[in-house]
Structure formats: C-alpha cells, structure tokens
C-alpha cells in the first residue's frame, strides 16, 4: 500500500465510521484528524496504532524500518497474548544510523528482510515505515515487493510514519494493509455455514480465551482472528467467513466495510463486556447466520452461563453495591464498561466521551441517568476535579492515568492496552468484580490517607 495524501484522506473520512455519518460521509473522523497540539498532545502516533492492530499476528515477524526510537522503546511490550508462536514478541528493526539517513535505508531494509527470513522463517514479514524513513523517501513498497519475490515469504509494507496522525489512523492503516496484501490470498481447507471473523479484538490479557469457548459450545467457528492471537494464514482466508463481528472499537471499521463491498460479508458491531452485551452479541450472531436450532443453543448457553454467573457474582455484588466510579476511556468501550459496571451494582457518575460518536453518546446518556457527567476533555486535573465533585470511590481508566489517581490516594483500575486481567465474557465479569473489590477494599487506603500522629492538631486546652 502506497500511502498518498489521497489514501490518507480516504482513511480519515472512512464512510462507515459513525463519526462521519451525519455529514454524508464527507466529513472527516474527528478523532482521526484532530491535529496534535504542540505542548498539549498526549497520544501515540500512527505507527503505534498500526503496530497495535497488527503485532497480535503471532507467527509473523514485525520489522520496524527506522532509527532505534520507534522499535527500541516499544518492542515486546504489547499486551496481546499468544496460544502458540512467540515470534511477534521479538523486536526487529533496521536501527538506522547517520550514514543510512544520508544515503537512504533501502539496501539495509532489503538485507534485513532476507536475514529475518533466513534466521526466523516467519509466516510473513510486516514492514513498518516510520517518520525518518518516510522523510528520507525510502520506497517501502518496492523493497517489500522485491524481497517477497526473493524470499517467497509474504512481505507486507505498512506505511505508517508517526507524523501522519494519531493511533486511530494508524489502526486503519494497519487494516488497510491486511485488506490489500493478506485477506483473500488463500482458500480455507474447509468452510462451514457458521464461520465468522472477529475484527478489532487483540487478545489483551487473554480476553479472547474467555469468549472462544462460548462460540465453540454453540458451534460457531472463528475463521480469522483479526488480529488477537491471529495466524497469518487464517487471516488470509478471512474472506470466506459468513459474518464479520467488530469488537468494541471502530478502529478497523474500514476492514469490515470493505470486506462487505468486496466479498459481500455483512458485519455487526458488538462488545464482550458485561452480561447484557455478551448476551446480545451471541444472539445477534445467531440471528445473522443461524437457524432456530443455533438460536436455541444460544438461549440454552445464555441460561446456563447466567446461572453460574449470578452465583459467582453474589458475594461481590453485595460488596460493590452503591459504589461510585468515574470512568475514563476511549470511544465505544465507555458504554460497554458502564453496562458491565451496572451489572455489578456500581454507579458510574462520570465518563469520558472524547472519542465517542453521537450514537455512542446517546447510549451513554441513557445508561448514565440524569446525574451522570459526560467529560468531553480530560486532562489529569480535570479528572481529579470530577472525582472530588462527584465523591466517587474510584477511577477506572487507562494505565496513563494510574498515577494521577494513586498519587491523589484514589483507588484505580486499569482497563486499557496494558492491563493484566481479562474482563471479556462471563468469566471476565467475575474477574472484573474481583479486581474492583480488591481495589476498593484494600486495607491500604485508610493507612495512606492517615496523617502522622504528630501532624494531627490537638484541640487547644481552652475549648
């Protein structure tokens, strides 16, 4: 994929993206085009986003073409887990030095690809361009093509220099690379009427493994895992699925839409968080591709899971009831987590809507009730202010806000990329309850809020 300005604009104005519906597909996705503000910008770059979307393909080598910063500060630290190959956890980079910056890095890149093939024999090699290699004008596509011919291994160029935009845009660049170079390049050995793809689920902390057994029980086969715990060849066959299920994120919506266009695969948007969403997800899949038999199986499964779940949650519901939390996370996940919190009897008194679409916002409003606060912007100070104002008991947010909360002596739960606990599916809800209970009721809170005995002012003798 050659990344021209036209291509970038197309990705930015992705028409199936909710952000743009209101404007007949002409407007640009707000969270994608928002130009980072000098001195204020916080987020990751497009390269980061592309890696988030593609690195979970576990049997591929991911080669970063650039100086050390991009790979050196990020390799091996992604939270997606693998049930098999560990190649994706290795950091490959051309580690460009001054000489190559001056004379061009194409030769080194070509040799690097050959060396990786020789030493690691990957299922495929994804090659990411970065700011510096884009600036010096290395022709990624040409090198990848030549190297693919030479090695016989698929070599996929991902034109993702950080400076083209945000993480969100990078996700799409990643999706685009899959569409152009991977999906449809292979035929599956067998197909069933119950084949689906999961899109945008990255198996962070092993969340996928809470859900796959459920699909298995009702006879649904996941053909392409895009990309959590994914295998290159499976994704290459993904065009034979009967349904695309987009998970909790509009990040790869371009994939779903284009696969509908090119292969006639319909898509639905679902979430694995909370009882209601999980139930709805299973029912919707059954309604889309199944018959009454499958639907019957789904109802049976839901009934038995609910029974188990209610029993498992009983002790936690008692301890969590009436607790108040402030939620700060990106996009669709907001409503999804709110509904999970509600399942546990927790009240969400404020949530972020920064990356949410109008549709999301309406839904969030409904879930929050009339006193709920919707946070448009959210820096650390703002968050602390809202927590104080709403007398919330804890903050649920991404890792970057962890120390904002802890330093203010407020309990915290991490729900983003770096988290270590899987919260998806029915089992995930129990895990979430356990973690919330632990965070809220830890004996440390009382101690760290307590002033030293010599700091307590004694009432003066006269009173």
């Amino acid at each position: 994929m050659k990344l021209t300005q036209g291509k970038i604009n197309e990705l930015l104005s992705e028409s199936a993206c909710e952000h743009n519906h209101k404007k007949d597909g002409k407007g640009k996705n707000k969270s994608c085009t928002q130009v980072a503000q000098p001195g204020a910008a916080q987020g990751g770059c497009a390269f980061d986003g592309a890696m988030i979307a593609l690195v979970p393909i576990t049997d591929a080598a991911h080669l970063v073409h650039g100086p050390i910063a991009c790979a050196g500060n990020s390799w091996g630290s992604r939270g997606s887990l693998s049930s098999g190959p560990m190649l994706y956890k290795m950091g490959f980079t051309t580690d460009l030095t001054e000489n190559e910056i001056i004379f061009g890095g194409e030769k080194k890149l070509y040799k690097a690809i050959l060396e990786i093939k020789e030493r690691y024999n990957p299922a495929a090699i994804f090659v990411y361009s970065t700011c510096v290699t884009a600036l010096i004008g290395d022709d990624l596509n040409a090198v990848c093509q030549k190297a693919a011919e030479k090695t016989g291994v698929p070599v996929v160029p991902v034109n993702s220099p950080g400076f083209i935009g945000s993480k969100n845009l990078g996700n799409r660049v990643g999706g685009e690379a899959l569409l152009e170079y991977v999906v449809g390049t292979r035929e599956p050995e067998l197909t069933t009427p119950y084949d689906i793809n999961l899109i945008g689920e990255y198996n962070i902390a092993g969340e996928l493994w809470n859900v796959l057994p459920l699909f298995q029980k009702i006879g649904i086969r996941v053909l392409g895992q895009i990309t959590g715990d994914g295998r290159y060849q499976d994704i290459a066959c993904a065009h034979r699925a009967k349904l695309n299920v987009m998970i909790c994120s509009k990040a790869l919506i371009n994939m779903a839409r284009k696969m509908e266009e090119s292969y006639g695969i319909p898509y639905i948007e679902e979430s694995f968080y909370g009882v209601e969403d999980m139930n709805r997800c299973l029912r919707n899949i059954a309604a889309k591709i199944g018959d009454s038999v499958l639907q019957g199986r789904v109802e049976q499964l839901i009934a038995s899971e609910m029974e188990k779940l209610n029993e498992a949650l009983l002790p936690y519901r008692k301890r969590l009831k009436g607790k108040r939390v402030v939620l700060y996370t990106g996009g669709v996940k907001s409503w999804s987590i709110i509904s999970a919190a509600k399942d546990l009897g927790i009240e969400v008194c404020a949530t972020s809507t920064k990356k949410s679409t109008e549709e999301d916002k309406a839904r969030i409003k409904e879930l929050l009730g009339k006193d709920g606060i919707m946070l448009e912007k959210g820096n650390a100070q703002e968050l602390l202010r809202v927590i104080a104002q709403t007398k919330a008991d804890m903050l649920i947010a991404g890792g970057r806000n962890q120390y904002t909360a802890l330093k203010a002596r407020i309990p915290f739960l991490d729900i983003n990329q770096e988290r270590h606990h899987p919260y998806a599916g029915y089992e995930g809800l129990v895990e979430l309850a356990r973690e919330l209970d632990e965070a809220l009721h830890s004996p440390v809170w009382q101690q760290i809020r307590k002033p030293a005995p010599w700091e307590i002012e004694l009432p003066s003798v006269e009173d």
Partner: protein
Amino acid sequence: MATITTPRKSVAVNPLKQSQPLGAALAFLGLKGVMPLFHGSQGCTAFAKVMLVRHFREAIPLSTTAMTEVSTILGGEDNVEQAILTLVEKSKPSMIGLCTTGLTETRGDDMTGILQTIRKRHPELHDLPIVFASTPDFKGALQDGFAATVTSIMKELPRAGETRCNQITLLIGSAFAPGDVQEIKEIVAAFGLHAIAVPDLSLSLDGHLDGDYNTVTTGGTTLAELREIGSSVYTLALGESMRAAAETLEAQFGIPYEVFTSLSNLDAVDSFLEGLADLSGLPVPDKYRHQRSQLQDAMLDTHFFFGRKQVSLALEPDLLWSTVHFLQSMGAEIRAAVTTTKSPLLEQLPVETITIGDLEDFEQLAIGSDLLIGNSHLAAIARRLHLPLYRLGFPIFDRLGNGQRCTVGYRGVMQLLFDLGNLFLEQEEAQTRH
C-alpha cells in the same frame, strides 16, 4: 584490553539500546519544576513516557512539539514556539528541557536560531531557562542522550560566583538509580560537605507521596542550586559519561574535577571516601568504618557462591564497567558482555571481548552462563536458557522498587552481594537436590 566487536548485520533483533531522547528526558527529570519537551512527532514522547512510567511507577511529565508531516517539511519553528507557550500557560514550569529526535535532526532544524527568534518575539520568557540538547535517535544510546543533556545543563545554567569552600558538585550519570543518588548524597553530607547533585533523581523519581497534583517534577535539583554551581570548589563526576560535563565546568569556572567510574565495589567505595576525606579535611565517619567491616564480612560469607561463576551482562557502558568490576572483585568470571554504545572505558575492561549489539547476539553468547544481568527484556532469554536473571539497567518493568534500588556505597554493595549470592545459592540447592 578488551576487543570491541560490532556484529555485521542489517537487522537488530530484540534491541538492547534505547534512544538518546529517552536519556535526555531522564536527565531532565532530575531537575525541579521541569517540563521535558521532545521536538518531534507525538509518538516518540508517548513511547518514552510509557517506558518511564512502567519502570518508575510514577507519573512522568513529558511533552511534545507534535510535528506533523507538513510542519516537518516547513520547519519546526512554529511548533516549538507554540509548545513552549502552551506549557508555560498550562504547567508553569520553572525550566523547560528541550531535546531533538530523529525526525527533526534529519530535517535539520536550526535549534539555536529557532530559540533565539522565539526569545526575541517573547520577552515574557526572559526568565524561563530553556535548556537544549541535541539527541538524534540515529546516533548513540540512552547513556549518550543523558550525558549530552547534563553537559548542556552545565553549559547553560551555572553562573560564576565566589567559591564556597565546602560546596561541591556531583554529576551523576545514567547508571545510577534514584536510590543510589540518595545514598551518595548521604555519604557526602556525612563529611560536612554541601553537595549539589545533578540530576537529582532521588527527589523526583524516588517514589514518594506528597500533596497536590502537579504537571511538572515536584523535586530535583532546583534552578537556584544550578545557578550556584559556579561557586563549587570541586566536581565529582560519577560515571565516565559525566566527564564531558565536568570538563565544561572546568573550562568555564576553573573548577577541578575527578571522575569516579564506579561506586560498587570495596576498592571503589574506599577511594571515594578517601577523596571526600581529603576534600573535607575530616576523617571518615565511624558509621562508614563500621559499614566497611560489615561489607568485608559479607564478602567472606558470599565468596563461596561467586567463585568462578560465569556471568553474562547486557548493560550500558558505565553500568557494565562497574558491574564487571564488582563481579571480578568477588571472583566471578565474565562469560559475555554486550553493550549499547561506544565509550572510552570499553577497551580498558578486563574481559576478552565486548559486543556492541542486541539481545540476539547476547542470547547466543550467554549460553553456558550461570547468571544473566540486564534489563527486563532478558527475562524471556533467561526462561529459554533456564538461567537466573538479576535485573539491572533500564527498563525494568517486572520488578517493584526501581526508584529505591541502591547498589552503591558499602551498604549498597553488600545488598548486591546478598541479592546475587542468593540467586547462586538457590541454583546450587536446586542442583544438589536432583
């Protein structure tokens, strides 16, 4: 003595080194009220921030000029200007620490010129120091970026003044953790000397709970202290990489200096204390005489476990130097030494070869060792080779307490002996039980 090799290959696999801007950020973070600012695209800052947060488990102030494709081509002046103005308005820093990245170095932004223009246009910034360090990603490693930054701080902030006979400057390299800095300061203070430590991570990244939320560092070397460095009577440079910064002070103010390349073995601590005694004219305090005897005793108890052990290290040059000497002082042998960047120390290291390379090289060289030493990325290698790992360096994200870790002074060395000794001991027990 050592031969330095750099494997000829086109791909770095599992890189050991981190980029210079990360080192710059770390050095700036040891100043009080500072906001480090990367001149580059936003992703570099985000990655660096995540790394630092994961290692120190602290909120880390770090900002970006948020260069885009277009602003890169046009030049970064507007972005630098806007970033500085926004930071001044929002965070009210007492200093800004500006450094470049690979992107803006490739473009070749004239930073001195840019800063001059901005200062001319904004007289209100007159009292705000903006320290600048050039730190391209495509050269050197974290240690170089850290050192370049300390040199810049020393060039730009100290002012000449009347010499104070008990004031010394400590320049503390990237090999030292906040806990080390704290111990060093305590030792120096015990000699009645007033030390200005730069950068002072022991007040900013040590991990402590204080009052309000802040967007800049709440502790570290203050601007007032930095200004007064011109009045110091002596500079102690800790880590070879601090030599250039010490030379700067000598050139500007005629302050003599001495470099201590290690504070992590008996001899090294001895000569450090001897130096302090000379400087202060005071005898070594009883406390340290006692600690010295404790260390010697610990060496006796632990030497059984160190003798002839094969150890492989993947560390930045300064830390490699001090750790190799520590190990050899206990009778252990160096199986493999991999490092990130050039240093005049490397050739003098009493080992056969040193590889400037990555962890792929390391994994091959380390086969047959008894122990690995390096950052958290070595954990996977340790698992594959079934070897114990002692975590040292940066980043360490699978161990707690990195802000407090101390491996210097008699006490720190003793702790190091016990920690490594216990690893060896555990290994021996496991083997005999079979």
